[in-house]
């Protein structure tokens, strides 16, 4: 009796999410499905991949894309690339950050500190847009969450450059990408094999770099992911335990009146 009711309840719950599911099946071709380490209920980030991904971001992406919501200190925080304290300091100080005004009222630059936000490649959105042929390179702090398809989509776009099929003409400064919505992208294909020299000796193929930088971006968008997963498991275990206890108590209490509520 109670079982069938619960099944009915759950099926209604599932039913009511049917329309939502459909939102996520759009016109474009499906992105490549990558078996990310951060997928699933217990997913965590691959530290080495995060560190390599940061290197790709720093050496390639960061010349156009900002990540304004991240700070250098985040790179050393648990659940992220987990660079050592010294490494974070060194990374931060390799950037010249504008500060001020000083006591003369002048702005000045100084080496970055871990508490600084990631340095923006351009002073503002307009400058970024103007420098990139009218297309603003989006801020990448939450890019993975801001794109339908998430990490799979970002990865697919990075490896999805192709010569345009016959019949498609491209304006100057526009490139063909089979995974991009509308297939036209203003960002040139920046990844070529061997572009970055990984310090851990990993071979820097296009796929490897795309995978690493996407992992890095996924962490940047959801730095709480590992804590969230860990806490989630504990919360679930607790809730299920309490539910069982409450269920048995309920049985006991109702048995005084009606043994088969």
């Amino acid at each position: 009796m109670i079982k069938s009711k619960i099944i009915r309840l759950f099926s209604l719950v599932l039913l009511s999410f049917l329309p939502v599911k459909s939102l996520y099946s759009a016109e474009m071709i499906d992105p490549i499905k990558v078996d990310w380490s951060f997928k699933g209920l217990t997913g965590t980030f691959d530290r080495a991949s995060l560190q390599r991904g940061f290197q790709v971001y720093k050496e390639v992406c960061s010349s156009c894309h900002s990540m304004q919501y991240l700070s250098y200190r985040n790179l050393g925080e648990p659940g992220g690339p987990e660079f050592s304290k010294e490494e974070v300091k060194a990374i931060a100080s390799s950037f010249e950050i504008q500060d001020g005004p000083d006591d003369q009222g002048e702005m000045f630059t100084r080496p970055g500190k871990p508490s600084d936000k990631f340095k923006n490649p351009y002073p503002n959105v307009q400058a970024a847009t103007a420098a990139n042929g009218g297309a603003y390179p989006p801020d990448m702090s939450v890019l993975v969450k801001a794109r339908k398809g998430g990490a799979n989509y970002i990865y697919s776009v990075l490896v999805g450059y192709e010569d345009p099929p016959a019949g498609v003409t491209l304006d100057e400064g526009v490139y063909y990408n089979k995974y991009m919505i509308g297939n036209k992208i203003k960002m040139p294909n920046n990844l070529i094999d061997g572009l970055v020299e990984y310090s851990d000796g990993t071979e820097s193929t296009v796929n490897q770099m795309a995978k690493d930088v996407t992992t890095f971006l996924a962490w940047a968008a959801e730095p709480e992911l590992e804590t969230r997963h860990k806490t989630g498991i504990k919360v679930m275990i607790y809730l299920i335990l309490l539910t069982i206890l409450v269920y048995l108590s309920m049985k006991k209490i109702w048995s005084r009146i009606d043994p088969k509520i």
Partner: protein
Amino acid sequence: MSDHEYTPKSKAGKWFNDRLPLLTLGAHLTDYPTPKNLNYWWTFGGILTFCLMTQIVTGIILAMHYVAHADLAFASIEHIMRDVNYGWLIRYIHSNGASMFFLAVYIHIFRSLFYGSYKSPREVIWIIGLLIYLLMMAAAFMGYVLPWGQMSFWGATVITNLFSAIPLVGDSITTWLWGAYSVDNPTLNRFFSLHYLIPFLILGLVVLHIWALHVPGNNNPVGIDIKKPSKDTVPFHPYITIKDAFALLMFMIIFAGFVFFVPNVLGHSDNYIPANPMVTPAHIVPEWYLLPFYAILRSVPDKLGGVILMFSAIFILFVLPWLDTSKVRSAVFRPLYRQFFWILVIDVLMLGYVGAMPAEGIYLVLARVGTVYYFLHFIVVMPVVGYLEKTDPVPMSISEPVLSGGVKPSLARKINDKV
């Protein structure tokens, strides 16, 4: 109400209770005689109270960190997600909490529809409930604007523009709502103010809702009036509280599943792009819980007509108690109505589905069919079926199940006529 007189045991309690009868109220709430045959569909009232409290508590916390300014709102959300201790948890509870709230309220509403809980003498409970639902939609809509992402901005633009359909004064009203010549910083600021206010209005209405419920007492799956207290009832505590707690925990497991494992699945990825008044997203879709109404809005090719129809879809529910002509409350004993009920459920789910799809081709056709049926259900099906339907025999009391042959059909019909 047939509550026995309550006298506090302690002297201090009696002294206080004579001046403010809070203890009497407490005793009333614990002893409140509740039909003993309530099924799990009746647990959603308690679940909804939990949802409201969760939203209020997490909302107050978020307001301590959030900045309601067009230039800073998006960044302050990221600040909450990245820097504030447990900020991600509280925000995800709040954003998913809105969806869970609506999930529960829809189940609650359809439960009323199935068991005829809106029928005499419970019309006022039903109407207050609908007012709560309206305020919930307002609160949810304004809350969705606060992160100031693309969906926030364009959702606000589309919804506020609905008012411009009003002849003559429409444009002045929209400008007044905006406080600018488009959705802008003043709009965000006032939405935040109102978003903070509305939950407390809801709380007030919830008190009235429960008060109005405690006058006639709960309806029940059999839908018959019962004597209170009697062998058909149980005291609210501990019988109903423990059952509500069990159901609430089941609900919380689903809730936690969303919060911890797929916190963004119910949202829209475009809302992680900061608002940009120059670019409209390719598909503007409201949150899932507003999709059926969105489908109704878009099913009409005329702007004013669409707006009127969308609002009618909600306001028609207010007169539902008078549109339903059946003398029997519960659909358990209404074989014909029961089928129409399920058609309505499917119809609303379908409207929700097409609301998420582009308004063209087959989806537009489905939206129109769905809209027509939605209104037909209330305007035609409910009054007509009530007259024509031959209902099944209704038992005399909860303890005497008629379906197993406890009551003779002739007797049952007599009772039926009396109800």
